[in-house]
């Protein structure tokens, strides 16, 4: 049988222009990495068609040990408080090889 280790998966959907800020925060909060996907969509700020940089969305996935979750969510809350529109959701996942996710990304 496979041992799957419990980690938190944070998914963030927002405008492309926030990429640098999000990456900086993920690095600071000790994630072992991050994954970015290109997205389109619609929400309270209107249609994001993906045609211009400004109306392209990104979807970021970050796997974190549960104890580091809170710090990342603090940063995301701060962005939202400033007026940025972020869709954020957290799920429980089981990962293969949990040591991998304990080693923070070298900057």
């Amino acid at each position: 049988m496979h041992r799957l280790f419990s980690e938190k998966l944070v998914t963030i959907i927002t405008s492309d222009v926030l990429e640098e800020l999000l990456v900086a925060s993920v690095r600071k909060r000790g994630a072992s990495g991050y994954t970015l996907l290109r997205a389109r969509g619609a929400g309270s700020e209107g249609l994001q068609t993906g045609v211009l940089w400004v109306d392209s969305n990104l979807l970021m996935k970050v796997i974190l040990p549960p104890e580091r979750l809170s710090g990342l969510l603090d940063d995301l809350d701060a962005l939202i408080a400033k007026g940025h529109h972020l869709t954020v959701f957290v799920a429980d996942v089981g990962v293969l090889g949990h040591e991998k996710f304990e080693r923070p990304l070298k900057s």
Partner: protein
Amino acid sequence: MNSLTNLLIPAVLFFALGFLARVIRSDLRFPPDLAKILSIYLLVSIGLHGGFELGKAELGTAAASVAWALALGFGLPLIAFALLRLSRGVDRLNASAIAAHYGSVSAGTFLTAVAFLENQGIEYERYPLIMLAVMESPAIVVGLLLATWSRGREAGAASGARAEGGHLGAMIREAFTNGSVVLLLGSMLIGALASPKSIESLHPFTTEIFMGMLCLFLLEMGMEAGHRFSDFRRVGWLLGVFGVLMPLIGGAIGVVIGHYGLGFDAGGTTLVAVLGASASYIAVPPAMRLAIPEANPSFYLTLALGVTFPFNVVFGIPIYHALSQWAIRVG
């Protein structure tokens, strides 16, 4: 001379086709990256071509062009901001973000104007191209300053504004390392530095296939404008009027600067008018979204892309050209 002639330019017709495709709800779709690729191509090509020609420019006129471009870039957003506040259509922060768009420029509109002039065999000065490159950044800076000031007013305290200080420095840095600015200025520099022979070898790429690439770009932008235009209701008619009035004001100011300030002929004056009249929809929106998150992107995108851009492409350019000719006739 009349609007009909304008409408028979392929680039304008393709814009209309894209717009129409949205209106009839066609399932015509472009891969999203295509617009980004085309706009990179357009900026590099006009940069190279323009830089090459400007290598031969008179320093005096070039300096004057830069000065006037700065004046436009710093002044127009203030006018736009005042108008928006007078109309009471939006709050201060939204007004700041929108204002920045109108102080900056739209390369797509500028190029359509060039196509309009070339189609009619009208000569034009090359200096407006430097102005295009110069005008991207100042309006962003003014927008940020307006927003900082607005936040102070709205918070009723100077403390908030001061806290943003360091942040503001970073934002202004970004106004000058903006991707479009780097691409356009960089290509102009290369066009001016590289050997004439090597620039000539780029001619088929930068010039011969240029009009076709512009047509494809405007086709896609037509679809995007159609998309945005349907958000019109959300914006309200007051803002809609602004989206048509402001380019007319900017265009008139541009005519004055082009003709009286810089002594250009009808062609060059038309182009300066278009710089004044057009609103940025590529370089400025990301900067505003990042720096003024409180403002609603669907306001400034709908205005710049869904109202002002189509207005300029279809009606504005011939109007500014007629104005320029009239100014020259009057003297």
